[in-house]
């Protein structure tokens, strides 16, 4: 059943929402025991919300089961960004997006696992006490990351499900591609970040993953809009400009032949021009990595074992105490990124790395904006490879892994809205294709994909 039909059935009383949610929770437990998608399943909250909707079946998402990526705060439910340093943290407020979902009748089922703080492309960088989520199509392979749990559960649930996810450099598009579902990343500032545990504040965007494209758009429409609690939230009327003229980024096809063959087949029915984005191609990965890691190293400075999360007894002076908590509870990739990010901001290196990366970012934004004067949307494969075997990821070094994001970091740097949808399967493995739109033309992307795919 699709999301719209389900909501109608809940409103008309044809579906008993409490019974349905009980089945959803049972399914969630069953899937989770085999695939590790959830960090927490919040049955009490879910049943409580379902009872409220049953008594008063209203709202655009009346009764719709929703999972929330672990970096987004849900009041009273453990929220950790899948990091040991936040173990036990139960927010005392809902993130704005979660509150908006509940106001429209959505049912929060649980928190989904991710790379620690979003640091990864394969969801293998979970904190020490978390389990790596497995690909819904082939459990020996990766779900993608960092919203791996979100995409996995969206793909594997037979009952209605939408996932709230988050992207900094591709963390919605990548797992959506690897799990064969739709993943939408909105224009930066279109959706409030209040209550999101930051990774890179100038890059983070909350978005939606789901099997049902219309459902994904419906949930995006619910969560978008200005929020006074987020200073980077934009007061902007989204004007829809129909997508008619599209371009394909030529160099983005320099990928695994298996991916290329599926995407080219999909494109054979579509009319397009071919273009190049030379600055984006050359610089986006370096610019993105420096900015993301620099921002992450400052955002993570607050995690020191006081006030919430991991809190050992106080036995040392503050520097030693904080250093010990951080060293014991942060994962390897997190430490690596903090080191690189701190270095890029240190006096003597700041201009050469951090400021330089920001200047290059402006040039990349200008390159995209110029392209959008001629075209309404850009198309490329989402990921350069098929979902990799987990055992093969162990052999990759950090730089190889960062390069996996080569097709998604540019649009994330520029804060452009993009939708990754399934283009087909290569020997059973899903391949994603990405449509990128101009700033604030978010909804037109859905119209375009509905019309052409």
């Amino acid at each position: 059943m699709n999301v719209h039909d389900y909501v109608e059935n809940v409103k008309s009383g044809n579906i008993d929402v409490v019974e349905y949610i009980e089945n959803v929770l049972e399914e969630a437990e069953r899937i989770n025991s085999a695939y590790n998608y959830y960090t927490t399943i919040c049955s009490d909250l879910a049943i409580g919300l379902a009872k409220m909707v049953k008594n008063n079946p209203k709202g655009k998402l009346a009764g719709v089961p929703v999972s929330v990526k672990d970096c987004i705060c849900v009041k009273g439910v453990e929220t950790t960004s899948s990091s040991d340093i936040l173990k036990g943290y139960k927010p005392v407020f809902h993130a704005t997006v979660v509150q908006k979902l509940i106001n429209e009748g959505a049912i929060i089922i649980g928190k989904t696992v991710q790379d620690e703080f979003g640091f990864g492309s394969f969801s293998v960088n979970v904190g020490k006490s978390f389990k790596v989520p497995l690909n819904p199509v082939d459990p020996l392979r990766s779900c993608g990351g960092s919203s791996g749990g979100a995409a996995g559960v969206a793909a594997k649930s037979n009952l209605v499900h939408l996932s709230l996810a988050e992207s900094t450099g591709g963390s919605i598009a990548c797992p959506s591609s690897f799990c064969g579902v739709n993943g939408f990343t909105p224009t930066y500032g279109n959706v409030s970040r209040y209550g999101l545990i930051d990774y890179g504040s100038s890059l983070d965007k909350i978005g939606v993953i789901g099997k049902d494209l219309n459902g994904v758009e419906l949930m995006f429409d619910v969560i978008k809009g200005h929020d006074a609690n987020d200073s980077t939230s934009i007061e902007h009327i989204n004007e829809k400009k129909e997508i008619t003229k599209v371009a394909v980024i030529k160099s983005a096809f320099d990928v695994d032949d298996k991916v290329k063959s599926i995407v080219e087949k999909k494109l054979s029915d579509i009319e397009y021009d071919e273009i190049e984005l030379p600055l984006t191609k050359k610089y986006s990965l370096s610019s993105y990595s420096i900015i993301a890691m620099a921002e992450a190293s400052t955002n993570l400075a607050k995690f020191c074992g006081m006030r919430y999360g991991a809190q050992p007894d106080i036995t040392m002076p503050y520097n030693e105490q904080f250093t010990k908590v951080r060293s014991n509870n942060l994962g390897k990739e997190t430490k690596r990124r903090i080191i690189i990010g701190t270095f890029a901001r240190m006096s003597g290196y700041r201009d050469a790395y951090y400021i330089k990366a920001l200047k290059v970012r402006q040039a990349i934004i200008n390159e995209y904006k110029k392209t959008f004067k001629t075209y309404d949307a850009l198309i490329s494969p989402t990921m350069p490879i098929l979902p990799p075997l987990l055992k093969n990821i162990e052999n990759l070094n950090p730089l190889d892994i960062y390069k996996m994001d080569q097709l998604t970091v540019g649009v994330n740097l520029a804060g452009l809205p993009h939708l990754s949808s399934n283009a087909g399967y290569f020997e059973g493995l899903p391949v994603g294709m990405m449509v990128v739109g101009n700033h604030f033309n978010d909804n037109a992307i859905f119209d375009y994909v509905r019309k052409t795919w």
Partner: protein
Amino acid sequence: MKIDKNVMQKIAKNARLELTEEEVNEFLPQLNDVLEYFSILNEFKEDIEPAFHPISIKNVYRGDIVEPSLSPSEALSNAKNKKDNYFKGPKVLK
């Protein structure tokens, strides 16, 4: 620019991280690989304004008006170390 062990330890200290000998030996070549890759940015010569955000952001102000906020017990609800409605932290002065 190459990072050596001393620079790495200095960065770690700034970031309040204590790296084991094993971590230093593992990270050092990895980080130098990454920095070498980043050096491609040196080829970009244009001097333009840095983009701190992807879209233009205006400063937001609000009136200095007291609004409902968290109670002390809510604010302290996640804290293990606390005393008399305050967070308790490690000593700052010896």
